[in-house]
């Protein structure tokens, strides 16, 4: 059904609108085409439009794994990097939520002296350059024995994610009046029941959006991970950097690039569906 709706709408567009729509789509999808071809190539040199030798032709002859054989082999470290990225992202999201939920509640509902400056203070980590934070943290973490550890990286990832999460959750809390909770209280619910059955379900869309966003940010942080992981802990962004820092994209680098972009695409699809259809579709309290 959704498909037909899109086609109908597309037909109703003026030629100009259609042209721009296609241009935007081409700009977004376009870069992936050469990437996919490169990932399947053995030798692809100027001025050939397509590789002169494909990976599959060379596959049997080569003594070492090429292209996707390399990417999907343990040699490429792609599995390790994916698991690390996921685990770190998940831990960062959970800790971030645990910190930000209570904080957002206070910021949305309470008034206290210095609240405005405090809110400004919260966004400071987004203003300070990551490199400055990274190097300073590295020196501190080396002393604390946290450099090159998962704990160190997770702490570092909290710095750029907390400001976003707090802002998002504060906005959601502000949209959620006290009256629903008061109503439940009048009807005899205890604090735990209120939290579980009233507050959390109503906060859900904001929590999910914030969590997805945090995860996405965490799984894309390069510099802090690079500094604090000291090369010992590899994630998808650091793996990609070490592959393509030469400025040349060979077949295995193209394959890794494609895989690195997968989590983002999957999460975007999930968040699109979930937030639009499930959460915001139903709306608050309707």
């Amino acid at each position: 059904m959704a498909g037909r709706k899109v086609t109908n709408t597309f037909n109703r567009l003026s030629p100009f609108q259609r042209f721009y729509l296609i241009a935007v789509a081409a700009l977004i999808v376009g870069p992936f085409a050469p990437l996919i071809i490169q990932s399947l190539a053995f030798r692809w040199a100027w001025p050939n439009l397509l590789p002169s030798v494909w990976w599959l032709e060379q596959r049997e002859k080569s003594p070492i794994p090429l292209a996707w054989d390399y990417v999907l082999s343990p040699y490429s470290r792609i599995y390790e990097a994916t698991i690390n990225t996921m685990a770190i992202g998940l831990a960062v999201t959970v800790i971030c939520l645990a910190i930000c939920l209570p904080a957002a509640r206070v910021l949305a509902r309470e008034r206290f002296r210095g609240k405005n400056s405090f809110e400004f203070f919260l966004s400071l980590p987004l203003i300070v350059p990551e490199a400055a934070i990274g190097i300073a943290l590295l020196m501190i973490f080396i002393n604390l024995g946290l450099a090159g550890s998962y704990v160190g990286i997770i702490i570092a990832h909290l710095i750029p994610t907390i400001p976003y999460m707090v802002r998002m959750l504060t906005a959601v809390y502000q949209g959620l009046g006290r009256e629903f909770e008061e109503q439940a209280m009048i009807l005899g619910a205890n604090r735990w029941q209120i939290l579980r059955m009233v507050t959390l379900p109503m906060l859900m869309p904001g929590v999910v959006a914030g969590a997805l966003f945090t995860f996405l940010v965490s799984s894309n942080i390069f510099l802090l991970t690079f500094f604090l992981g000291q090369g010992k802990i590899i994630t998808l962004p650091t793996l990609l950097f070490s592959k393509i820092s030469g400025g040349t994209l060979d077949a295995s680098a193209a394959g890794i690039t494609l895989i690195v972009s997968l989590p983002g695409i999957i999460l975007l699809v999930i968040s699109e569906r979930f937030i639009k259809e499930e959460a915001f579709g139903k709306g608050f309290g309707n």
Partner: protein
Amino acid sequence: MTGMNKSALLKGLMTASALALMTSLAYGDDAAKQFRTDFLDGKASWDDVKARAAEEGKINFYYWGGSDTINVWVDSVVTPALAAEDVTLNPVRITGTKDAVDLVLAEKNAGKGVGEGSVDAIWLNGENFYTMSQQDALFGSFAQKVPNSSNFDWNEDDPRSLLNLRDFGVVTNSQEIPWSGQQYVCAVNRQYVDAANTPSTFEDMKKYLEANPGKFTYVKPPHYVGNTFVQSVMYAFNPDGNGAIPFQQSIGDLGAEELARLIKPGMEYLRAIEPMLLGADGGKARYPEDIAALDGLFLNGEVHFDCKFGLYAVHTGLQTGTFPEQAEAFIFPKGLMIANKNYLAIPANSPNPASALVFANYMASVESQASKLEKAGMPVGIDIWKLAADQAAMVEKAAPKHYGVTQEELDANVAPDTNASLVDVIEATWLEYIERGSSASIEEIVAKSAKEIAQ
């Protein structure tokens, strides 16, 4: 971010944080200290080392991870071989060797003493070794104390031992063990250049560029591959005509004035060819940042030559599709193809020093050297004349094919590399005179650079 900026930043921040955090200086792990002293004094037998290595059970090896073939070799050959010694190899792939050196120094400056760091072995040479030895960050003279040291020539009276005893002219004191011996070899794309037009001297190359502008470039210093190209130019245009010989002395012995006199014609040559290099037509000459970028230009036919360290570069390039089909090596510059070795070093604060020694010993074995040569196309670092006949035959059999040149021709055109203390000054001079196009004279630039580096 460039390496230089990063290290400057690190240095500043290190001092600041050391003060701010009131770091109590750690004294190091006593057992590791005892082991280090015992081993270096010859009191620990090799069995003791192996026993301690099995106890440590782990080694963190930091190496440049930019080559798929080397990565596959390390994972599929070295890891199982060390597992047989009860040591788990943790290969840490880095984008630049300097990152590992910076890490060791940062940890050292943060008070992480013997046994308390995180790096056990580094693949390095030249400036990186020089930095570590200057900062007293090396484990000690171990290379002649491991069993497989017999595969190397340590006899100072034999000139062939030079590359085991000196790394870019700096005395190694056995603080690193040779791993691979490389030579600066240029490849040519036969699709564009036939044998008659192939240059063999820098003057030939200039003529080639006059006829085919834009078809050559070299990796940008301070990358070591670029530095090496610049050094071979300096040798070729040495006004005394004695090539590499004066460049073996340190800057202190040679003096800035003399160095300026020696490199002036070479620098002038580099400035003269700059308008004919890749991209110079459309403005500024383009120097690729590293070998991967240069290989890309070579593959695409944007340049006709590809100069880098790589005795078997054509073999590997054809095997991985990163070189054009008609690539071939050629002798250039005649008689001045710089050869050197690269090494494995153990940092002073290595957390698993015994495992690192077992690892270094394994890497120096004939079996591992032959398999590295065959599977990763990396030349051996051991000295063939020190091997038994069957071992030498094993190495010979493992050697990949040469394309366009023979081993004899390569050997006949060897030149030594430049003293590490001069490398820095020549590099700084290149950056000032060529990259920034400074109008100051070579003499002024060299004097200024030498002074700054000495500080």
